């Protein structure tokens, strides 16, 4: 039997391409989702531990590596005299406003840190120049140096930030809001950038930092960590000994001082990963929900394809039964096929994601995060692919098991019955879900709305077998195009179960996209009109900007995005001399640009302008980002369903070679044959899309209605642009999905096709 399965897979591998692609996409998406979460955890861990990477041991508080403690210079000196300790680096940090002779201070602050006495402890690489050796030298990060337009040997000025979080003693001494004079430092070298902000961008010697901020190195300054280098290796016993010594010296757990411990950087890494894992679980769950969705769609598509393949092979399976294969062996052959497909597909998907991660990492394009795909992610993705395919082959295997050899030989096919239990259960869930959703809307309870929405979604999917095939037939009938069109309609509805499953897969994707799109659209329209009522003035020009001339008003009102400008009496409410009304749909960057242009016309800085424009824009941007993220995550499900249409179409065409050749003999031209196949895909994809849009619109609207408070009325809108784009995409998808089947079908000459046995 195994020989039969393997030879089939080898000879007819083209029939399995779509299944492989679907399994690969699902397994790959799963791996990618987990990998994304691993990447974030790894990046955050790196942020925390990167600064300790050259230390042999680190003193931190017992709770975590980010709370602070204190140590006097005497105590630090004492630690450095402990047996086996080579060097000690107590890390202090503050912020400064940098400037240079060519670039003025623009108010943005840069992190400043003290350098270790032992240069080998410095976690940032020195890219150019040397380690500072005096109090008036500084190490500057490459990016800051570039911003300040300075190089090795140039001078930078550092100014303390007024009211900087610099410590009470010093603030009291200097007085808040009275910044000290800028200190000058000569640049001795350029240090490695830190994309994540793990390293400071200005490094000063201990004395240099004291010069900049006299309170900084004194007494009980808050410390996050003390880094140590040791003679020889840091084994457990030595760390244990250090623990006792350090606790004694720093009086850990006494008075204000928290409990302390000595830990190796490796231990710290592990600990941080554990702590972060809990936090990234929410994100992981979110990503997994979308992965699960695409797996659900994949399950439909793979089940469908394997069912079609098994049905087409009924004759072959029957022949096997006749020559002595037991029904168990026949079933096992279908399951084996599933297993092989699952392994190969999952391997491809996981390997592609892994390869992408490696390439991404090597290219250094993304330096902000540490691209990481953990072995766990690869394994889970791989298993997902296999389990998915195995579950999908259970149904076809059961049917192959139950089929009588005689039916198979006769070529008769059991009629597609409607799965009563599933449909009835689905209808009940749909009714209950819709009820809950409406109730959620009535009492403005988002949780009821979400629960009801999910249940209705499930109901819609489970009952699809009931309403999709008649719809497909109906739509097929009204499509113009003569006899080929009518044949296409009949073909599309020929195997209702097959058509229903294919369409359902696409329906799921479209429905969710439509829900998200509508939700965003309705939320945006209502939120913005609400905001517009509360704060109608988008940009108000304060009296301080001086008189606004008619010329300026005309210029402003001609700007893109400006609806109107009016001058007001500065003695009135907000003391503005002019008010500008802008369109509602600007996102933050568009709003900032508009604000800048207006400021330019009025000869003021953008910061002088007031009004609700930027706040409104921030909501627009948040909604835009949410929409983009959700749509991106739904893409996998949509891709899988499109592959499903392609798969069903090519198998159907394969199955109808003889019939299509007969039609060709009787006078169907090549072009008519192509049109017929394309129409069939078009009918299926259009029906799924339109049903998905309608139901998705209802879900999205009701969802927002359940979210808002009682006193808000939700205005109904349809995101026409988005919906039209989706319908257009459905047409394109149908044409693309039928391209290969069309090519294959029109290539066969009628004589060849009529002679073909299978």
């Amino acid at each position, binding site marked *: 039997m195994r020989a039969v399965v393997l030879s089939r897979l080898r000879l007819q591998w083209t029939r399995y391409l779509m299944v492989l692609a679907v399994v690969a996409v699902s397994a790959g998406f799963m791996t990618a989702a987990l990998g994304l979460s691993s990447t974030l955890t790894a990046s955050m861990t790196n942020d925390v531990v990167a600064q300790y990477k050259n230390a042999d041991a680190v003193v931190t508080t017992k709770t975590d590596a980010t709370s602070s403690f204190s140590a006097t210079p005497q105590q630090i000196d004492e630690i450095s005299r402990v047996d086996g300790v080579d060097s000690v680096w107590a890390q202090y940090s503050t912020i400064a406003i940098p400037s240079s002779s060519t670039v003025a201070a623009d108010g943005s602050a840069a992190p400043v840190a003290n350098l270790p006495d032992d240069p080998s402890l410095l976690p940032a690489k020195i890219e150019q120049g040397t380690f500072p050796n005096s109090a008036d030298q500084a190490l500057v990060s490459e990016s800051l140096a570039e911003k300040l337009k300075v190089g090795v040997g140039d001078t930078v000025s550092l100014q303390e930030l007024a009211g900087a979080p610099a410590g009470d003693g010093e603030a009291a001494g200097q007085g808040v809001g009275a910044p000290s004079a800028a200190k000058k430092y000569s640049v001795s070298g350029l240090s490695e950038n830190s994309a994540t902000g793990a390293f400071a961008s200005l490094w000063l010697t201990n004395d240099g930092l004291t010069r900049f901020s006299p309170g900084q190195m004194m007494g009980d300054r808050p410390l996050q960590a003390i880094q140590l280098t040791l003679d020889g290796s840091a084994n457990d016993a030595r760390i244990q000994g250090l623990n006792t010594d350090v606790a004694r010296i720093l009086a850990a757990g006494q008075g204000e001082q928290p409990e302390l411990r000595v830990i190796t950087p490796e231990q710290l890494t592990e600990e941080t990963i554990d702590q972060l894992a809990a936090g990234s679980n929410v994100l992981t769950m979110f990503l997994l929900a979308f992965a699960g969705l695409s797996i659900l769609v994949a399950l439909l598509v793979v089940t469908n394809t394997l069912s079609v393949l098994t049905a087409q092979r009924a004759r072959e399976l029957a022949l096997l039964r006749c020559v002595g294969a037991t029904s168990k062996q026949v079933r096992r052959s279908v399951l084996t096929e599933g297993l092989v497909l699952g392994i190969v597909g999952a391997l491809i998907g996981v390997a592609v994601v892994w390869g992408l991660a490696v390439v991404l990492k090597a290219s250094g394009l993304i330096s902000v995060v540490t691209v990481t795909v953990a072995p766990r992610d690869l394994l889970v993705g791989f298993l997902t692919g296999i389990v998915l395919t195995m579950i999908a082959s259970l149904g076809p295997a059961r049917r192959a098991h139950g089929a009588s050899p005689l039916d198979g030989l006769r070529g008769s096919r059991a009629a597609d019955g409607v799965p009563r239990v599933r449909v009835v259960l689905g209808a009940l869930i749909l009714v209950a879900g819709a009820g809950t959703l409406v109730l959620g809307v009535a009492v403005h309870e988002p949780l009821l709305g979400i629960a009801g929405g999910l249940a209705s979604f499930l109901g819609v999917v489970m009952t699809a077998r009931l309403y999709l095939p008649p719809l497909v037939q109906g739509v097929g009938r009204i499509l113009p195009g*003569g006899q080929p069109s009518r044949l296409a309609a009949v073909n599309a509805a020929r195997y209702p179960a097959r058509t229903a499953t294919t369409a359902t897969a696409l329906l799921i994707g479209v429905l969710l996209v439509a829900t998200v799109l509508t939700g965003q659209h309705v939320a945006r329209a209502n939120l913005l009109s609400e905001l517009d009522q509360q704060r109608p003035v988008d940009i108000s020009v304060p009296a301080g900007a001086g008189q606004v001339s008619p010329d300026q008003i005309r210029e402003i009102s001609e700007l893109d995005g400006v609806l109107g400008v009016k001058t007001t009496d500065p003695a009135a409410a907000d003391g503005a001399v002019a008010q500008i009304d802008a369109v509602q749909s600007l996102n933050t960057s568009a709003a900032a640009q508009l604000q800048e242009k207006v400021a330019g016309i009025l000869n003021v800085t953008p910061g002088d302008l007031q009004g609700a424009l930027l706040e409104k824009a921030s909501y627009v941007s948040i909604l835009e980002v949410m929409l983009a993220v959700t749509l991106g995550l739904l893409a996998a499900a949509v891709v899988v369903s499109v592959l499903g249409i392609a798969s069903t179409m090519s198998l159907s065409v394969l199955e109808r070679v003889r019939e299509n050749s007969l039609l060709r003999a009787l006078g169907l031209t090549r072009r008519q044959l192509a049109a017929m196949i394309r129409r069939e895909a078009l009918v299926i994809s259009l029906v799924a899309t339109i049903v998905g849009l309608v139901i998705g619109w209802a879900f999205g609207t009701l969802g927002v209605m359940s979210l808002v408070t009682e006193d808000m009325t939700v205005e109904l809108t349809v995101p026409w642009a988005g919906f039209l784009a989706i319908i257009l995409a459905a047409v394109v998808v149908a044409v693309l999905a039928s391209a290969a089947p069309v090519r294959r079908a029109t290539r066969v000459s009628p004589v060849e096709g009529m002679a073909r046995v299978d």
Partner: protein
Amino acid sequence: MNTTRTETQHSKGLPWGQQTQQPTGQTQAGSTASSPTDQNSARHTQGQHQQHRSLAVVAANVSRTYGTGEASVKALDRVSIEIPAGTLVAVMGPSGSGKSTLVHCLAGLDVPDKDPNTRIVVGGQDITGLSDDQLTRFRRDHVGFVFQAFNLVPTLTARQNIELPLSLAGKKVNAQRLEALADTLGIRSRLEHRPDEMSGGQQQRVAIARALFPEPSVIIADEPTGALDSTTSHEVLGMLRRSVDEFNQTVVIVTHDPEVAKAADRVVRVRDGRIQADDAATGDH
């Protein structure tokens, strides 16, 4: 092409009434697009017309080679044949001798090897060198097919199957005429059934009805009784015979059955891609 076609039809005088042809824009456009070839063939056939007034099929020097190089098979080797209108011709010969290839070439379903001496004229239309689309339209208008099995489109009813060649060409179907034909063939009561609800014999009758209905220049039947029992195959054969006798239809039957050969006006024997013998049958009709 229409003129010649009408003339061949006149000679038939089919009892189920003259067909009303209403070409739609589609076929119209098709014929204009293919006009250069059509004019050629029209001129050519007009010339021959006086001479071969009663020839439904004229084929000269038809060769067909499958494959290339050493693996090539010469299924037909410079075959020539003329078939007068209103005759029943039986094509016989051992399996693999080239019978199907021959009739496929005559029907415009298969294309002979390129050769300047090759010529195939069916129903007055020269089909040598036509494009795939032109051949398809030619088949719609001039050829009726009956195959051994898988004759019918499984998703369509008997009526829809019979209408198919006309509806593909976008022509109107005269329902009365169709029902009269179905009556003659004894399938009137089966018209609204699908193929899987009919016996093999009934399916073949529907196939014959479909072949006869558009009044083609020639009906090609490739082993039409090969899958039927002897009684049914006798009936089916009788119907084809009647269409020749009563309606002046031209029929070419590929067969292994000596009974069929007896009923034929003429028997063409094929062997190794050549016509071995071409005798008027000794049959009793």
